[in-house]
């Protein structure tokens, strides 16, 4: 075997090794597309973070709190609402309020599995088993209709210290009897807010209005009935005129 021959064999082997290395190395190149298609079909997105960011975060806040709508990351709210209700509201929206329907069957863009992911994962992330510390809250739905007359008294007892006499607001909290406000919120929305409070703003839940005296189901129903009775016939007139 001449030395020249062995050198050529060596360079051939070297070239082969380099080629193999190059091919293997190419798998790690930055331009190589990641696995799967670059853009997933919108109806096949099942990642909670993506779905929540795109569909919910604008009103309910980036991490489920801090938004203008009810905080979904509030363990008290999650303890009050069962999955069926959560799902129904997400899918069908709440007519007359700002909550739109998200299910395709109701004119939205999300599929049923996508809504399931939102409901399941919200609870998995944000619910806490001891959120109510053993107390049972008034039921989500009112058991019996409230009485507006009694509601006025309930209001003075539980709410007036922050919301002012007659609900017209004071420094700590704004008016809750404004016609336009009441016209854009549902009775159920009022009931939910009375029960769970507004944790972002420090408004207490049904247990905290008067220390040691949680509101009863009937008291909640009554105060909601009183609020509903304050809705004017023609809300939202910037220049109130005439008798």
């Amino acid at each position: 075997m001449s030395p020249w021959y062995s050198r050529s064999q060596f360079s051939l082997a070297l070239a082969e090794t380099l080629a193999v290395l190059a091919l293997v190395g190419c798998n790690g190149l930055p331009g190589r597309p990641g696995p799967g298609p670059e853009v997933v079909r919108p109806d096949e997105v099942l990642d909670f973070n993506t779905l929540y960011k795109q569909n919910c975060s604008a009103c309910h806040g980036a991490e489920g709190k801090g938004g203008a709508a009810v905080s979904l990351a509030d363990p008290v709210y999650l303890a009050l609402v069962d999955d069926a209700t959560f799902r129904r509201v997400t899918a069908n929206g709440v007519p007359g309020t700002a909550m739109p329907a998200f299910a395709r069957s109701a004119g939205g863009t999300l599929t049923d599995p996508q809504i399931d992911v939102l409901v399941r994962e919200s609870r998995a992330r944000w619910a806490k088993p001891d959120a109510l510390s053993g107390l049972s809250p008034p039921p989500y739905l009112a058991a019996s209709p409230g009485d507006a007359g009694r509601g006025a008294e309930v209001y003075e007892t539980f709410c007036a210290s922050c919301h002012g006499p007659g609900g017209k607001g004071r420094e700590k909290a704004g008016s809750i009897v404004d016609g336009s406000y009441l016209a854009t919120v549902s009775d159920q929305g009022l009931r939910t807010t009375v029960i769970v409070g507004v944790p972002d703003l420090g408004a207490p839940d049904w247990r905290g209005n008067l220390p040691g005296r949680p509101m009863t189901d009937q008291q909640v129903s009554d105060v909601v009935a009183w609020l509903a009775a304050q809705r004017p016939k023609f809300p939202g007139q910037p220049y109130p005129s005439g008798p």
Partner: protein
Amino acid sequence: MSEPTKLSRRGALMKLGILINGGIAALLAVPIVGYLLSPLRGKAGQDHNTWVSLGSLSQFPEGQTRLATFRNPFVSPWDGQTADIPCWVRHVDSQTFQVFAINCAHLGCPVRWFAQSGLFMCPCHGGAYYADGSRASGPPERGLFKYAYRIDGDQLVIRAGELPTLAADAGTAAGGKEAMRWIKSLGEWLDQRLQLSGVIRETALHRVPRSSASWWYVFGSAALTVFILQVVTGIFLALVYVPSAGEAWNSLQTLNHDLALGWFLRAMHGWGSNFMVALVLIHMIQVFLFGAHKYPREFTWTVGVFLLLMTLGMAFTGQVLRFDQDAYWGLGIGASIMSRVPLMGGWLVSLLLGGPIIAGATLSRFFALHVFVIPGMLIGLVGLHLLMVLKLGINEWPMPGRLVRRETYLKEYEELTHKDGVPFVPDAIWKDLIFAGCILLAVAFCAVILGPFGPTGQPDPTIIQTVPRPDFFFLWLYALLSLLPPQLETPFLLIAPVIGIGVLLLLPFLSGEGEKSWRRRPIAVLTVLLLAVILGTFTKLATYTPWSPQMNAWSGSPVPERYLHDRSPLERRGALVFQAKQCRNCHALGDEGGQRGPALDAVATRLTPDQLIRQVLQGRGNMPAYGKNLSPPEVTALVAFLTTLHPAGQAPARDASRPGALESNEDRASSTRP
């Protein structure tokens, strides 16, 4: 006696040969031409539209607008999902419906319905329509296209089958003997200048002026090198690519993920395309600024203009072959532009699409254009371009004050190459080779680091959550179509290209003599700079599209928490109205949201509550009127929220007359009380 018979036999055999060849060519031409023109025949003979069911009436609740999908009645076997066509169904009352096409009446992009604000919005140029399909704002000149419908038992049936565009019925064909005579005289004129005979004798050793063996003269050869790269990579891609509407996207996925370095091949081809467009443009600017288009090289320039158009044609058809959502809707835009041609619009749309909708036949058409027709013409014209450069000689370095005169130029050039010339090989070519090598390395670098382009989502027209964008080189056009006043669009689209191309073609014949140096041609330099600034600005604008509504901002961009803290229940309600009514899609808060309308972070310092109410109710300029779409309490809540939007140290705008008006109102009210 024998001599003449021999000759006539030879002549007869030659005639026979021509006849046989011509006959076979004609036979081959019949099916090809027939197939190409079949959509036109179909259009004239029979209507593509037919009645299609959208399904049971119960799917469409009264008073609501819902998305429906139907299978286009005229399909080819390879249309795949492109034949699933979406549309919007509005159930007005018991037996009254409106069925709207998904395509925006502006350029055909998919419009989306927002029930909360009662508007259809287009993601591209911001066309907006009211619930009844009438135009609300933005560039569309008309309302949404409507399908005719009827009710069959419990089925909603619509008349559909063709891509809805502005085009009227088929127009008329043009033609004439005049054209033949004109072409003939043009041919004679061409031949005089081309001097095809004997050109090939010139070899690499032809002498070029020493001054032109410069680094400024390398862009043309680099463009040629990238073209060869495109041909080679293109052939390989064609081995895997399936030009079928149902399979093209999947075959690109195979290239990206399953074949060793398939993605690299795609990336090289994609970046090669960008580099080629750029190099051709730079080459053209260099030629123009160095006066190389002047006598006797006018025709080299003219051929170059066609090469530019074909390069852009390759770029567009290539983008279509990447058959993804952008490609699909890009074709819709092409069809929309075509449909604006008076009289012939419908014809041209059918010719472009190869059928009644964007589907398999469309892709096949663009495949043929991209792979056979345009490259074939490109190769031919590149050859011609090169021959002319060889025959006429490379432009000498322009010296200020050395004027071009038809009478003397050729002699002067000959003297120059003799006195101060060098052989092209090797004195000049080494720079070309090195620059071309660097360009190829740059293409490979981009391919390795940045990867291939797309494909983005599947070309399924029923996926309307998409925002179509053109590729880089057409971004300026995308910007222009957003910024032109609507009534100027059609004239601009139809007239400007004709004028632009006409000016380019005529340029060397209008200024074929005189000064070559850019130092003595200020208007030429300013024109180039102006065009570069315009195109650059439009391209830059189109990368962030301030005119496009952000379709997901209403549900995906949170209101900054500082705007919600210490606010009354009514003001917080207003923030919800702001989001739920899609105001955010056009108005930013805290740098998030659309830029179509002004950002509203400090709107309260600019508008009083009354002015805000008026703006919301009546709209103005590009803003739709929300008077019909918001209830009075919603407007009050919204305006209450907006009046809180002012910087901490700056008081909101105030109408001094308002308290007085309220007071007198109350006075009047109390005085009328008994």
